[in-house]
Structure formats: C-alpha cells, structure tokens
C-alpha cells in the first residue's frame, strides 16, 4: 500500500480526519450506525440538530483509508444539512470525489445506510 494507491483528498483526510468522535446522548442528539467490522467496515454517526438543520456531526469508523476519508468528508459536508439532504445523500458523491475503487463501493453503501438511518432517527425524534 503506497501513497499513490489513494488520491490526495483521501491521503489528507486519512492523516487528519475531521470531526472524529461521538456526541453523548441528549435531547438534541441523533445517532445511527451501519456495518460490521467482520465485513470490514462500520460507521457510527451522531449529530446535534437545531430546528431543521444539523449544526455538528461526529463520526467513528472502522475501515480502510477510503472509508476514513469518506466519513471525514461527510462530516464536513453535512454541516447545515436538513433531513431531506440526509435522505437524498448518495454514495456517488463521495465515490467521485475520493475516487473510490469500484470493488470498494459496497463500503460506501454502508455509509449511505448510516446516513439514511440517521435521517430515519431524526424523523422519529419529531
């Protein structure tokens, strides 16, 4: 595995992932997860919501460098997102930007599952 196996965005986020962690359970916190380490990837997402928007998102990940980068990128992109944004979020967005290898796209679907599960959580909260 060398530097050239990944695009520069992946290398950067892998070295310094943004917003790693989780929010403790509270009234304004929603959380969801997807995946299983035995299948090579798991994402745990938690977000603080205010009115109809996410004001902060934290993620935890067990996965390959592409997955760590995807979680980190997502945590930046979903700041300010609405429930509808979450529901509409598709793995393709991260796949293109991070140049996900085709054989790893299943792992991004796991992230998509986690995002959609977060939206469902939010819905139930209301």
């Amino acid at each position, binding site marked *: 595995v060398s530097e050239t196996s990944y695009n520069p965005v992946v290398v950067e986020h892998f070295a310094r992932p943004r917003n790693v962690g989780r929010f403790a359970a509270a009234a304004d916190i929603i959380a969801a997860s997807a995946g299983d380490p*035995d299948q090579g990837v798991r994402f745990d997402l938690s977000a603080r919501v205010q009115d109809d928007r996410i004001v902060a998102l934290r993620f935890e990940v067990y996965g390959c460098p592409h997955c760590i980068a995807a979680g980190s990128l997502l945590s930046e992109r979903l700041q300010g997102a609405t429930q509808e944004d979450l529901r509409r979020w598709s793995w393709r967005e991260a796949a293109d930007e991070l140049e996900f290898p085709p054989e790893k796209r299943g792992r991004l679907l796991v992230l998509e599952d986690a995002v959609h599960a977060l939206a469902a959580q939010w819905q139930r909260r209301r």
Partner: protein
Amino acid sequence: VNTVKTIYLDYAASTPVDPRVADAMIECLRASGEQGNPSSAGHEFGRRARALVEKARAQVAKAIGARPECIVWTSGATESDNLAIFGVARFNADRGRHLVSSKTEHKAVLDPLKQLEREGFEVTWLKPGADGIVRPEQVQAALRPDTQLVSLMHVNNEIGVVQDIAAVGAICRERGIAFHVDAAQSAGKLPLNVDAMNVDLLSLTAHKIYGPKGIGALYVRRKPPLGLKPLIYGGGQEYGIRSGTLATHQIVGMGLAFEIAEREREQDVERIGALRDRLWAGISSLGEVELNGHPQARVAGLLNVSFRGVEGESLQFALRELAVSAGSACSSASEEASYVLRALGRSDQLAQSSLRFSLGRYTTAEQVQTAIAAVKREVTRLRSYSPSAVENKP
C-alpha cells in the same frame, strides 16, 4: 525529496543480496568471468563454468547435510515444490493417488496439490492446531496404503512456526512414503540435515537467504533412488530431472549465499532473535494485540501480530514508513483474509488486522525502535477513530 526512509522489515518476502554474494556473481558476468555453457564439456570455457556450478552444488549440499549429486538446480522454491509434488505423484500414479499435506502450506504447494485433485488424485488436508503446528500423529493417522507423498513445510512463511519435520519424516520413512519439505523459510535460520530429518525431497531458494532471485534447488534423495517425473524436458541437464542451460552466475550466488548463511547462522540467529524479542515487547505493550503462531516453536526473525480494533488496510497505509506484509506477500493483492490465519481459527477481522514483521541480517536496533514507535503511534491513532462497539467485540 523524500526524507522519510522506509524501514525494511520484510525479510521473509525477500532478502537483499549480501554484497559478498553480489561481488561473486558480478565476477561471473564480467568479460573475464566464466561465460561458457556448463554443459559444454568439450572445451575449457564449459569446463571452467562447470567447476563453478559444482562448487556451488557442494556448498548448498553441505548446508543441508546432503551429498552434492542430490542437488538439482531450479528457478526457485516454487519450481522445486512443483517438481517434487507433480514429479512424485505422476511417477507413482499407477501405484496410488493419495497425498497428504496441510492447510497452511505455501501456495506453491497448495496449488499443485489442488491441480492434482482436478486430475483425479486425492489429498488429505491436515488442519494445524491454533498454534499453527501439525502434530506428527495427525500425519500418521492420515496415511493410507495408497499414499504416495507427504508434503509439509518446515517453517511457515506467514507466521514463522516450525514443524516437527524429523518426527513426521520418521513416520513416512517407516511406511516407505516419500516426504517433501519446503525449507524456503528455514534455510539459514535453523540447522538443516536431510538425513536427521528423514527428508526425501527438500525445496530451497536463494532469495530468502541473501542470494539472488530466480534460482533455487531441490534436494532429491539418491539412496535408495527416488522416482521423479520431470516438469521440463529438453537438454537433459540435472540428471534429466530439470532440463535447461544452467545459470552459472545465479548458481554461484546461491552457493555462496548458503555457505555464508550456514557459517554465520548461529550469530545471526542470536542477534536477530534478540531484536525480534525487543520488537514484540514494544508492540505488545500496546495491549489488545495477539501473537499468531506458537510462541516458542518459531524462527528468530518473524513476528505475525493481530491488532484488535484496527482495520488491516488502514494499518498498513498508516505504517507505510515500514515495509511489512499483511499476510503473505504473494497473496496480499487479494482482498480475502489470510488463509493461514483463518486456518488457525482467527476471525476474519483479526486475520485482516494482522501484520508480518520479518527481521534479518541488516536490521538494526535503531530500526526496531523506530518501528515500535510508529506502530504504537498509529495503532493508538486508528483505534481512537473506531466505534466503541468494535473494541468491545470479543
């Protein structure tokens, strides 16, 4: 300018050529060197090249306690394994079609055996214990009247455990069954004696013992003679067992590499073993790490470690300043978890989160300290990203 120097800890994949070996090989290739065909007995050029080939044959033979005429040059351990397995199986096919081996053999043994299965042979695949060791009694129990060959590696390339070859050999010898041993990972690390180990066929390679790539040998028992059907036909070199013009410079390199390795074996092993212990002490201080394979019955230079709560590819990328292997170098391109670690009963997750560190002749204490620091730093970092659910998994 890349100022970060990668530390080479992958000696089990291949070793650098010892400068003394490189010098001897280069001499062969110069205009003043021996450029004749070793099989050209009719003139001086050929005879001088032949003399070098025979000197090397004696050097390799001496390192394994064999007579020189038992050494057959090949292109490496993969060819030696293929020649031994196909050679014995096909030579004896009308007498019996059963073979015995283990699930943790190198692919160079597994794949020829699988091919034989497709050709109608039957293979009993022994499952080693969780420590990676195949018990001699397992071999005993697997033998049948139609068994033609037992093939078992001396030292496992992924985890470094040492099999009790002498005991298995004694069982095979008693039953008159041919016994093949892949010794690619044990030459220069453990004492080798084909008679004491009751071995009939022994695969060797130069590039794991500070010699060049592309040259190996197969020891073939001569007394009583062992029937072997060749894989390669042609000029009838190597007693008709392996045709092809002999590569004088490669052979010279392998001969010298084996002589040096045997002469310096004890001091090398002591020094490398101490560095390996230091590396393990450093890594294990992290906690939640598992040493793969038997803790004592192992070669000096190799450590295979599973890290809990860290994904394998991220671990490898995070530690790219260290040249180490995830599983076996030959198969790490594939996504599947190491079949060796799976055979030992490790979960997919632990098998994927394993690294093989292998140390050698040029490894320094400073490199080991740097490696320990890098492993501790990066494993701690990656674990801090992990969902807590992962860490709580059994």
